[in-house]
């Protein structure tokens, strides 16, 4: 096949699958169902190939058979333990290998926690209020000392009230705590609204990408031969 023919078929397949998937927007139908199963099949095939091409071959097979690290063979019995779930008597062995993964994940949590949260604790704990210089650093939006201080106080108030909202070990009653936690809930709503609003742009960008494919790559270039 000529390269151009291949390219054309690739684009036609792309158009068909795009329209096929979009058809679910009208309602669930046979075309969608076809593409859904096609997709699941391709995805499964892709996972298998990726597992071999990107992981098993370079990190296992090559090391074992070409570089001669024969002890890599022990990966097979270890991995077999996953499959012991299908054995009535020895299904406990799948939990043994699972335990290894579980422990490894748990052990890494300490480092992840320290790396993720310590800088945040520090930021929160070192918000200045007094003696702020006129800040003009990137991201500081050229704040005056007064507004920077105000914003930093607000930061603490929001942080504290949202955290209060998430305390579970006592009944939230009395005068102060319920209103603090209510304020926390309201600021959460502001935050979620903001997240929603700012995500719209990302999702629209995706749609623009797809529409550009349909309009430019398919209609304008392939059908109308525009460049």
């Amino acid at each position: 096949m000529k390269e151009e023919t291949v390219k054309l078929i690739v684009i036609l397949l792309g158009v068909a699958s795009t329209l096929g998937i979009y058809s679910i927007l009208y309602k669930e139908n046979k075309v969608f169902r076809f593409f859904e199963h096609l997709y699941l099949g391709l995805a499964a095939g892709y996972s298998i190939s990726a597992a071999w091409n990107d992981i098993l071959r370079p990190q296992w097979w090559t090391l074992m058979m070409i570089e001669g690290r024969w002890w890599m063979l022990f990966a097979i019995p270890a991995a077999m333990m996953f499959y012991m779930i299908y054995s009535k008597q020895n299904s406990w062995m799948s939990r043994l290998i699972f335990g290894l993964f579980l422990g490894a994940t748990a052990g890494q949590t300490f480092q992840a926690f320290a790396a993720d949260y310590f800088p945040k604790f520090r930021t929160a704990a070192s918000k200045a209020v007094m003696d702020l210089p006129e800040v003009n650093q990137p991201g500081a939006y050229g704040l005056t000392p007064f507004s920077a201080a105000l914003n930093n106080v607000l930061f603490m108030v929001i942080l504290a009230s949202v955290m209060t909202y998430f305390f579970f070990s006592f009944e939230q009653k009395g005068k102060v705590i319920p209103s603090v936690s209510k304020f926390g809930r309201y600021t959460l709503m502001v935050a979620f609204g903001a997240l929603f609003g700012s995500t719209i742009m990302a999702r629209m960008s995706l749609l623009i990408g797809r529409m550009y494919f349909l309009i430019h790559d398919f209609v304008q270039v392939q059908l109308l031969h525009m460049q």
Partner: protein
Amino acid sequence: MNHATWPARVILIVISAVIVWTVIAAQRGKKLFIRRIPGLTAIDEAVGRAVEMGRGILLSSGLGGIDVVTLQALAICTNIASAAARYGTKVQMPIYEAALLPIAEDAISSAYNKAGRSDAFSSDDVRYLSNQQFAYAAGVAGMIQREQYAATFLFGTFFAESLIMAENANMVGAIQVAGTPSTTQIPFFIASCDYVIIGDEYYAATAYLTRQPTLLGSMIGQDRVKIGILVTVMLGFLLTMAKMPLVKNLFEDKDMPAASYYSPAKGGK
């Protein structure tokens, strides 16, 4: 931070000790209180609705691999499955990460066993779908549209596909409860689901649903740690105000001049 600094060692060990201590205290029979969490109370209601309507329930443990978040999701799903099994409602659970399949199948089938309904469990109900994000979403969307579930429960790590799943379930009129530590997805769950479990309510869920001493103890421990963090941070804030930035030094990792060094205001040029 590639390796712990001294403050990090101390703080992490204190945090861990507080949690483990409360867990052990709870296991020894210390009485513990947990306040009402509305989103979690809704789980029973949703299962009840599914029973009334005589249609199935969809569980999803999200897109995580073998990690803390997904194991917690699995624990929540197991609780839901056992409630559903008691009423004899069918539960289906599409799985994302193959390595989780045995453990999920095991958990759900043991939930059925506990309810005395092991006959109702079919291993096809916990099935692997795909470990490709959107193939999984397409598969779940298809399942929802065809099976017309009465209730869907989405717990675990979610990314963009959250809305595809939640909107499709909304179209078929399912009652939906969702919970995720992926904070960015919460607004979409709020828009499409009936009840949303926010933030670390997610980690409180199993404690709340089962009232197991271990879990309750852990939750109380977490609460104490959070209060400790809040107090420390506040203290640091006040000390900074008084020009004694103690806490700043305490959490210091390594001097990090990157921001100021490259900031044009201070003149790298």
